[in-house]
């Protein structure tokens, strides 16, 4: 078992290991095995295609939190130039689970705000596994207001298991911090484009998720609760997470079909973690397109449209 591959990715891992092995032999011997390598590569691609053609929601939930999945800063370095990270909420501290700052997208200044997970154990702890505390939401809010003041578009990148369930987070009013962001984002006088790049976990995700366009990377999820959390409450067992994932309808395809998100950004074959550059290219194209669609929209109209979009969330009937 290769720990960098998920269960259902193991057949791909095995084939790739075999290809690597052949390459190694190829370097050392005079036998030309390029043909064999090409054949295996084709096989690998078609195997990947067939595995990824029928992913279950639970498998997609695992891809969304794949240990190799690109995080906010992986995208930022690839899509933007001149990123200047800005720190702190000016109230309590600087939460490393949310990063933000100014950067340029094809020359155009923008404000970037995103959850940030850690790659190794030490960084995971520093980043608190991408789970913000109130100071994180408040830093995000401060940066959004700064963007509003100078009329810079806001681009958010969502990737969090959720808000941090801790004593200190509660003491510092994490409910209020999340609520305040929702309240303020509804009225910001600048375009907001939100992209879920991994896990869109409940209130911690929504706190930077109110915008004029909401996009999901193809194998990202967006949900009111994690499949495990839902399973342990409704099925009384976290083991039933696969069923919960199915019931919650947390995948990009499903959410698009329900008209709860605006756009799906394609990931390269095998998922974003297989090719960071292509993923970043795809996302950058989508962001540029989204931003240009707001270029000729007046501020009042932008806010009205945003409000109309928010008001229309919900399914109900009214009987006489």
């Amino acid at each position: 078992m290769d720990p960098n591959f998920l269960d259902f990715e193991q057949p791909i891992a095995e084939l790739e290991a075999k290809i690597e092995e052949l390459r190694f032999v190829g370097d050392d011997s005079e036998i030309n095995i390029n043909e064999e390598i090409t054949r295996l590569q084709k096989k690998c691609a078609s195997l990947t295609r067939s595995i990824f053609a029928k992913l279950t929601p639970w498998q997609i939930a695992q891809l969304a939190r794949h240990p190799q999945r690109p995080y906010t800063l992986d995208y930022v370095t690839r899509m933007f130039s001149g990123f200047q990270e800005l720190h702190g909420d000016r109230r309590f501290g600087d939460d490393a689970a949310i990063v933000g700052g100014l950067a340029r997208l094809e020359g155009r200044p923008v404000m970037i705000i995103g959850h940030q997970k850690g790659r190794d154990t030490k960084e995971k702890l520093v980043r608190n596994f991408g789970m913000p505390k109130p100071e994180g939401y408040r830093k995000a809010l401060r940066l959004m207001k700064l963007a509003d003041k100078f009329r810079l578009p806001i681009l958010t990148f969502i990737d969090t298991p959720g808000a941090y369930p801790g004593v200190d987070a509660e003491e510092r009013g994490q409910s209020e911090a999340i609520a305040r962001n929702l309240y303020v984002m509804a009225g910001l006088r600048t375009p907001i484009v939100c992209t879920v790049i991994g896990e869109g976990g409940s209130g911690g995700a929504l706190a930077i998720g109110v915008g004029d366009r909401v996009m999901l990377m193809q194998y990202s999820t967006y949900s009111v609760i994690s499949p495990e959390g839902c399973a342990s409450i409704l099925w009384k067992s976290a083991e039933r997470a696969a069923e919960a994932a199915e019931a919650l309808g947390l995948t990009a395809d499903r959410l698009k079909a329900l008209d709860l998100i605006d756009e799906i950004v394609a990931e390269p074959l095998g998922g974003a973690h297989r090719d960071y550059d292509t993923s970043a290219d795809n996302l950058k194209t989508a962001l540029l397109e989204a931003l240009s669609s707001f270029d000729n929209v007046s501020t009042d109209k932008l806010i009205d449209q945003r409000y109309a979009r928010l008001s229309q969330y919900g399914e109900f009937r009214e009987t006489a």
Partner: protein
Amino acid sequence: MPSRIRTEANQKGAVPEGLWIKCENCKSVLYRAELERNLDVCPKCGTHRRIGARARLERFLDPEPRTEISPNLESTDILKFRDSKKYRDRLLQAQKATGERDALVVMKGQLKGLSVIVAAFEFEFMGGSMGSVVGEKFVRAVNAAMEESAAMICFTASGGARMQEALYSLLQMAKTSAALARLGRRGIPYVSVMTDPTMGGVSASFAMLGDIQIAEPGALIGFAGPRVIEQTVRETLPDGFQRAEFLLQHGVIDMVVDRREMRDVIAALLSALQNRPAA
């Protein structure tokens, strides 16, 4: 964030219909009629018992005039959600047990002569959880407040977002908060009264967006539930954690108000905010 607070739909039936009720806190045996006269606050120890949406509105509003707003909204279960039980069946059961169509009741009325729109949660309806109907009703309440230039008051009692409506529930947080942002721009006051319990997505949206934030004594108020936090931090929680008094101490709310004073206090606050003569 969704409800981890469980209620059995038949809990209501379990409350003795008899003349006597035992206080869960001080164990005093109380005469039912006396308890009701005391607004379901234990006369011996001051414990605020949970009360339903109708009882809340009945006791809070002036007797006349009253009009209910959008009483006929119902969930459509668009996801056909099913866990150990069908969501549809859970809804029917909750409707039967409470007589309500969903977990929020909204009325237009008056408080000591001041025009108000009041929303109150029915906790017995699936733990007061918020799905599309609760979100829509709240927004309609806010819209009514804008139309009437009436103050908005909301009494929350909720475990949070309703899991059975998945992302729809989460998005109600954004929808309701956006409505309040509009209300705020019109300069119309909004008072949030958090009663036991106010958790998760309801706490992290309109409950915490009051111009004035009030809690009833002893109410549990927070985002993550205490058990979830305990499992995460693996330490015992501080005394009174997430209780109204704890929130007051930490600067999260303006005041803790006894239910029996609620009409007087809110009327005084609203008349001051709206620059009207003292009620």
